């Protein structure tokens, strides 16, 4: 049998990279008493393509940010029944700016431009709206939307660091946010952890109900593999960083990557954190029609034993 998995770019997918490089899924499937599967790994460049691939049956495990995964859950509920299989850990996303006058959200002016991968709908856009709701009141969650612009992380980083464009801020993700902060002209306005009051899951692996029902042991093995990978990362951050650099053919400094991995805000865990806050907010602003009763609605039973939220 074949298991088809897709991941995206970035340090946030490190657990999957470890699973891939160390062939952990193969091992746990074997240990569950099934014949060793052929695992096919694919890299996909965005959530939209990821979802299409999952919906057309070209993928078994898809991975994307929390927001797209919740959208997917809401839209397929009662039919394809997509659910999260595991979190890929919690990482903060920073809102960085090159405008020295900006110390908080309230300081953004007409002339500022905040870059996001996708205005209004993406993970960072939802984060920014949640932050705006906190800063300006529940109903003013959209206050900053008019000054947001869509841009991919690398493009936004170039724009911000180049200093020649109107982009003065960027709601980034690792490792771009750290790369930006190496430039003295750039400083952090807020971290997503501040917005959610603590760590929150960043990327989620998800699968359809049909696959889960047909392959319960594979799903369990996948969770176990991620757990084992997280364990490895926690114990051998240096090797994990080296593994990442090799797998991604990255030109980043090993020390820089290691710092990302060992950052105390970063937690590589399979347990979903603060996902319900996302779901509630997305429901509140109308991005999804239905609200999950609890985080357990969003995830497979295999995870329900963990300390999720």
């Amino acid at each position, binding site marked *: 049998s074949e298991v088809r998995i897709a991941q995206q770019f970035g340090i946030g997918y490190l657990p999957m990279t470890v699973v891939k490089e160390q062939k952990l899924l193969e091992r746990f499937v074997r240990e569950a008493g099934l014949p060793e599967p052929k695992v096919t790994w694919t890299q996909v460049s965005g959530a939209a393509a990821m979802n299409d691939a999952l919906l057309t049956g070209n993928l078994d495990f898809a991975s994307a940010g929390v927001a797209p995964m919740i959208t997917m859950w809401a*839209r397929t509920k009662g039919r394809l029944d997509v659910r999260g299989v595991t979190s890929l850990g919690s990482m903060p996303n920073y809102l960085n700016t090159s405008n020295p006058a900006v110390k908080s959200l309230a300081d953004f002016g007409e002339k500022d431009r905040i870059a996001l991968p996708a*205005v209004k709908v993406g993970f960072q856009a939802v984060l920014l709206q949640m932050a705006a709701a906190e800063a300006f009141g529940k109903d003013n969650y959209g206050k900053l*939307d008019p000054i947001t*612009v869509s841009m991919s992380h690398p493009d936004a980083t170039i724009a911000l660091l180049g200093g020649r464009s109107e982009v003065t801020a960027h709601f980034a993700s690792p490792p771009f946010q750290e790369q930006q902060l190496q430039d003295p002209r750039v400083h952090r306005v807020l971290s997503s952890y501040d917005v959610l009051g603590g760590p929150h899951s960043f990327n989620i692996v998800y699968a359809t109900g049909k696959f889960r029902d047909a392959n319960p042991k594979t799903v369990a093995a996948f969770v176990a593999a991620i757990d084992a990978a997280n364990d490895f990362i926690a114990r051998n951050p240096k090797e994990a960083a080296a593994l990442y650099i090799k797998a991604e053919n990255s030109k980043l400094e090993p020390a820089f990557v290691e710092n990302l991995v060992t950052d105390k805000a970063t937690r590589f865990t399979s347990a979903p954190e603060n996902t319900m806050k996302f779901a509630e907010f997305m429901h509140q602003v109308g991005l999804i029609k239905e609200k999950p009763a609890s985080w357990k609605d969003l995830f497979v039973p295999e995870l329900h034993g963990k300390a999720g939220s």
Partner: protein
Amino acid sequence: MAWRPEREYRPAPPGAIGDVSQSLPWLHRLAAREDFWRLAVLVALALVWEGYGRWLDDDLLFPTFSQTVAALWTATVSGVLPLRTLASLETLAMGYAGGVALAAILTTFATSTRIGAALLTTLTAMFNPLPAIALLPLALLWFGLGTPSLVFVITHSVLWAVALNAHAGFRSVGPTLRKAGHTFGLTGWRYVAGILVPAAFPSILSGLKMGWAFAWRTLIAAELVFGASSSGGGLGWFIFEHRNQLLIAEVFAGLLTVIAIGLVVESLVFGTIERRTLDRWGMRR
């Protein structure tokens, strides 16, 4: 050879032959009309779409024609789609105009000098295969975020097709017509406008048609890549936004709008121009 008699005949008078030229019944005339067949093709395609959609039964992946039309209706009535379409058309018009203007300059240059011709063919071979994202850094640098950059990319996509076709058209203008123009005392711009442009019009028009198709393609793709600000945003953004929310019927409604506008422009704008010019001048290939 055996001898053969000569013969003379008294031909039937015109009246005796019946109508030398008779009207055909309406069914024949209908079948001879291009529009009729185009409409038939459109209807057939809609039916195939509906059928396949129903058979698939997966509105997350491929909504049916009727679902799409329903979504189109809702989005139109709510005013969102018209607004977005208008925004796109505005950008498109600017980029298209820019591309055509630049193409005019480049082609004039290419037509009048050797190095100009080399410049045009080389630039076209170089830049035509480049996707819009390749221009992103320069666009951002020169024009900043939003519409101006979009206009730049559309200009780029239109420019080469139009310039290439116009250049080919100019080159194919016969020496007789050229000389005739010169004899009239026309030189420089008056010569280009008075002789070359109308004489190369079939080629120019086909370049314009192709440029139009690219402009759309590029716009939709570029709106995703280039900082669409949330305040504005065109059709491309409409599509992307709904795609992100997995509202696929709306996505298809957006695409259907693109198609509909394409068909309208093709048959109304370009079709009318063709009828008014090429057909009347006997220059249709």
